[in-house]
Structure formats: structure tokens, C-alpha cells
């Protein structure tokens, strides 16, 4: 594993927060996924060695929690809330808009590599439904028109980069 010095120092800082090293499994997975983008087998083995565990102890955690992924995703991660309050306010239309805008299907990397659109369960912002998280940012009241607007913004940023 070639991790940045900042990531390594944050890893060394977080482990002593707990009386047992195993407790640092989730924090380490988050830190590595934030840097690398996904959790590889190499990362699983690295974490296991670091925390004095068997790789299976880390692997079973990766496969259980929805936020950890074992494959790379698009440059931006669009997570649309699927659960009842958002669905009542049009969440399914919001999600379909993102899929159409980027010519992609749920869970796949879009052909241009820009985004991965995902349907996720409740994001705990039901009063401003439908909600969408793009990377770490929460967007509220995202109807189809606002989804189009956000998509255009992402496309614009992609163009500016090229």
C-alpha cells in the first residue's frame, strides 16, 4: 500500500482512540477509501496486518456496510435517497434524471467516467425531500429540474478540466 503521509499519520492517530485495535477497522477503511477511492484486497490485507487481525475480519466488514466498495467509481458519487419520504416527493424521478443525463445505470460508472449514480436508503433529511448527496455535499429539494441543473454543473466542471 502506498498511502499518503497524511493518511498514514491520521491512521496512527486514530488507532489509540480505542482500547482494542480491532475497533479502528471502520475508521481505517474510511481513511483509505477517501484516499484511494475504494477498498482493494491489498488494502484489506494491509489493514488486517496493521490491526493484528485476519484479513477475513476486515473483509466481512467491507462486505456488510453499504458505504464501502470494492471497485472504483466515477469521479463524482451521486447518491439519491430512495426511502419513503423522498420517494413521496419524487425521488425516483430525480434518480432517473441523473441516470439519463449521464447515460448510465444505477451502480455503474458513467461512460465518460464522470459519475456513479446510486440509490441509497434514508439520508436523514426527510423534511427537505427529495435529497441527494454528491460526494460529501447534501443537496435538498432536488426535483427533476434541479437534478438537471446539478448534472449540467458537473458536466461543466468536467469540460473545464479537459
Amino acid at each position, binding site marked *: 500500500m502506498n498511502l499518503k503521509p497524511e493518511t498514514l499519520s491520521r491512521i496512527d492517530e486514530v488507532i489509540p482512540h480505542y482500547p482494542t485495535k480491532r475497533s479502528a477497522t*471502520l475508521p481505517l477503511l*474510511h481513511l483509505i477509501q477517501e484516499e484511494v477511492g475504494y477498498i482493494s484486497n491489498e488494502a484489506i490485507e494491509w489493514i488486517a496486518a496493521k490491526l493484528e487481525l485476519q484479513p477475513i475480519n476486515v473483509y466481512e466488514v467491507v462486505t456488510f456496510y453499504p*458505504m464501502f466498495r470494492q471497485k472504483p467509481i466515477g469521479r463524482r458519487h451521486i447518491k439519491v435517497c430512495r*426511502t419513503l419520504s423522498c420517494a*413521496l416527493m*419524487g425521488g425516483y424521478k430525480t434518480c432517473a434524471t441523473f441516470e439519463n443525463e449521464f447515460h448510465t445505470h444505477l451502480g455503474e460508472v458513467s461512460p465518460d467516467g464522470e459519475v456513479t449514480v446510486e440509490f441509497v*436508503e*434514508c439520508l436523514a433529511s*426527510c423534511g427537505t425531500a427529495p435529497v441527494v*448527496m454528491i460526494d460529501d455535499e447534501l443537496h435538498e429539494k432536488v426535483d427533476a429540474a434541479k437534478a438537471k441543473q446539478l448534472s449540467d454543473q458537473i458536466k461543466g466542471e468536467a469540460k473545464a478540466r479537459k
Partner: protein
Amino acid sequence: MPAPAQHRIIFQHIDEPGYTNDLACYVQHGGYEVMKRAYARPPAELVDEVKKSGLRGRGGAGFPCGVKWSLLDRKSGKPIYLVVNADESEPGTFKDRYIMHQDPHQLIEGIMITCFANSVKQAYIYIRGEFPHGARILEKAIAEARAANFVGPNVLGSGYGCEIYVHRGAGAYICGEETGLIESLEGKRPYPRIKPPYFPAVLGLYQCPTIVNNVETLCHVKYIADVGGEAFAKIGTPNNTGTRILCVSGHVQKPGYYEFEVGKITMGQLLNEVCGGPLPGRTFKAVIPGGSSAKILKFGERFKGKRKVGAEMVDYDWAVEDVPMDFDSLGMIGTMGGSGGVIVMDDTVNMVEALANINAFYAHESCGQCTPCREGSLWMKKISARMVHGDARPEDGQLLKSVADQIAGRTICAFGEACAWPTQSYVAKFGDEFKGYAEAKKAGKPAATTLV
């Protein structure tokens, strides 16, 4: 009767212009003064105040907080932990989000008072993974509090030390279940533990005595330490003390969060006056009063029985609109106050589709440990999805019910009930809609909104 005014204690500063989430602003508004006074008192006295207050947990179960604390095994010689449940994952609930993002020091002060009262040396805030900013805000706030000696090895020079760390979840609903949360904090899959013997108060985090409290509950503890248990018990109604944040979402004009004295406002006042009533041209059809697991209420149904008012037993005959929003009243009519998440559905919603949405949620979130829940939640999802996207049969409602009936009471944790109650109550109250769903589909009335 007009709705009472909001009584904002926990949300006093939420959305206040100019109020920021840093220490300076909090201190300027009198922050950490309650804690300073609390630290001058014997810890047992603080526990008594919370017992006297009658505070009930705001996470979902409504268990009395003082009783929870008094169950702690204080003689084991093992360290005692406080775990703050900031997983806020019950669909329809979105109150803790605002506390943590806008007023994190209120929570930290509540944590430090709770820790002092219960001789806790280490607290963890388990925050859901979907709140990355919330986690950063809390970490910054804890660092500020540590620098000001409100958190750390020698808090306020009292000789008492306590540390707080933030621990992020990763998108699993079951981590809101307290023993699942503890497993997750230990770095494992969040499989809930069986009780007995694993009551957190005795065998919790690292097999040590542990308190697990919700974010809002701990903010109430801070307020109780300020005004005293007796004064707190005068707010709200007997056995349903204090204020409660009601989160309203779905088909109302003004969804959002509203803080009221518990039991002083009815469902009708909340939805029609506070939230502005149904959307134009529509009527209310159903409401879930306490998070998606709570049994649904159907507008038009009536609830009759006897209830205790003061020392007397009084008859009640309520429509949905008349039900006071407190733990006991909602419990009496067969549902629950739960986490305070009120989800409203109007006459455009087909209940088969709404149930299919919820069943998909529970099938996704079952941890898979207990067979009845793992298989049952999946079959309920499959059956209801088939009704919507494939062929619906008149007997499907009964089939769904028979699956649900085999889950509740047969699982390690309350998820079994949580996933069965929606199906049981939807089928019981909207049975005709399930029976006639195939016909309704054939009639070709397109659904206003896709729900599944």
C-alpha cells in the same frame, strides 16, 4: 382549538441568524455554565435529577433515561462507557442532524454532564457515515472544548478526566440498534447481541458497563441539569415530560422540525395548523407517527378506550387528528411515538406501493443474523414488488401478513418487529386496497408518483 406555540429548548438556536457552531458563540450564549455548576455537585445528585425529570429516551424506544442509568453495573470495577447514538437512521427522522451541525457544543455539554454523573471516562459519538460534515464539525467542536478544558484529562480543574471520540458508521441502519452499534464500534459486523445476557448496562462495549443514549436525549440531560428534574417534569404531560422534536415529512405544505411540549399538541393541530395542511386539492390519507417502523394510522379510523387522566379513568374516542403526540397516547392506539418522525401520505398514494417502498428498505437493512427476519423481510419485499411490477393477486395481502406474523417476536433484536409492523398495519387498515390492487392497475390509473 388552536395549536400551542412551539416550546424550543433543544432547538432554541437552530436556524437562528448569526448563531454559529463554534465555541465562542456557544459560550457567549451561556454555554458550559450548566456544566460548571453540575461539576460542583455530587454525581449521584445529577442522576437523581434525571430520574425525577421522567425523561424518556428520544431515540425510539422511549425508555426512561434515569432508569437506564440506574441499571448500570457500577460495582464491576470495569470502566464505564458512554456511547452516543448519533446514527439517526430511522426513515422520517432528521432532528439530530441539525443539533450536530448547528449546535454541537450543546451535545458535548450534555455528554460531559452525563459522563460526570455516571463516572464515565471515555465517550464515543457513533455518527452515521452519511454525515461526513457532521463528523468533522463534532471533531472540531471537541478539539475546541478540549483546548478550553471542558473535555480532557482534568476537566475544569476538577481532577475528573473524560475523553470524547467521534466514530463514523458506514451506511447500515442496524447500527442504530444499541447492541449492533456496540458491535460496530468494536470493529465488527453490527449483529445485534442477545439480551440477556448482553444488556449494555452490564455487558456492553468491550464487555464493560455501557450507557447508550440518543443525541436529543443527552441535550435534554443538559437542560435538566440546568433547571432541575422537578421543573423539567412540569413541562409536557405526566409520564411524557419535557419537549420533543417532531420531524414532519411527506405530503404537507410545510414539512420540517417542530419542538413542542410532549402531549400538548395533537396530530391534527400539528399537520393542519403547524404544517399548513395537505397540498392543494388533496386530502390526508394516512400518517406514520414515529418513524417508518411505527404502525400506520388511517385518517377516518377511530380509537376508543379508557385512559388515566390524573387519578381517574376517562373514556376517550379519538379520530387520528385528536391523538396527542406523546409516547403513551400513541402507544394506546396501537402505534408508537418512536423517534418522532411523522411521515404523511395523501390521497394520491397507493398503500401497496408505499408498503413496497418500505419493504425494500427493510429487506436491504436486515443484518441477516436471524432467519425469520432475513428471509421474511426479503419475501415481503419480493411479494410487494411483484404486486406493483408484475401480477397482483387478491390474496397477496394475506400472504404478506402471514410472512410478517412469523417474524415479530422471533428475532434477537427489535428489527423483527420494525419490519413486520408496517406490513401488518397496512394490510389490516388498507386491506381493500391490497385485494383490489390488480383491478386498480388494470383500470390504468397511473400512479402520481413512483414509489418503488
